[in-house]
């Protein structure tokens, strides 16, 4: 059987397209300044849609501790659930809150900020 180079090229292209069809998680550089001393409880679950087509759900009744600030807002993490952002790759994330709304995620390994557009209002209690 003779297979043309063009056919193999097209096949390789299709394979690479299928293999990498999920977009990467949008990230921008940011600078975390460590901070502690604040926390809140999420009283209602919140689902944040990502530009990758996936979504991330913050569960109700989870407690979030301040770990620092970035120019985009305050960075909180929880031990009550795992938060990941999924796209072409999967990244652990902390939430970034500004004026009571989820504005994005801080990726601690990459040290980047991934925005949530539009911001998602959070229902919280002290």
């Amino acid at each position, binding site marked *: 059987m003779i297979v043309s180079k063009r056919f193999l090229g097209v096949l390789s292209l299709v394979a*690479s397209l299928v*293999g990498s069809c999920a977009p990467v998680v949008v990230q921008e550089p940011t600078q975390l300044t460590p901070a502690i001393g604040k926390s809140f409880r999420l009283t209602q679950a919140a689902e944040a849609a990502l530009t990758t087509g996936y979504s991330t759900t913050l569960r109700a009744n989870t407690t979030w501790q301040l770990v620092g600030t970035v120019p985009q807002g305050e960075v909180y993490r929880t031990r009550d659930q795992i938060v990941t952002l999924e796209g072409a790759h*999967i*990244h652990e994330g902390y939430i970034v809150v500004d004026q009571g709304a989820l504005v994005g995620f801080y990726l*601690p390994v990459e040290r980047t900020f991934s925005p949530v557009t539009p911001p998602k209002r959070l229902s919280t209690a002290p």
Partner: protein
Amino acid sequence: MRMRAGTGMAIIASVLLAGCATSGPKFSEMTATMSPTKPDLGRIYFYRTTVLGAAVQPGVRLNGEVVGKAVPNGFFYVDSPAGNYQVSTETEVERKLTFTLEAGQVRYVRLNISMGFFVGHVYGELVEEAKGQEEIADLHYTGGPKTP
């Protein structure tokens, strides 16, 4: 002739099934003898529950170093210092998982398989501790502890 065909089928089936079998003690049998994590280290469990795509068993890299293989129904673990970690597996494409590890923390990374063009893609997903403990209980140990 019919006997030969039947015998051939049986041999093929046994070879395929043998390929799916995973030896080694079960997690639930090992927990009593498993060494505890040193205080300055955390532990990362890697496991694969499904036999779907059993022939696809890529190496699993932790921060670039191969620490084990994605064997169906198998698990292994790595004790590592606190820090940032990247898990990657490579089939047609490389898919990465990034997460942090603290001293004394235990992380569970499930190795899932998704459909690919030529072969399935194996990728790591961070799983919560309770879920990880439940899913890993009946899986077989496939490696030794390594410190990268």
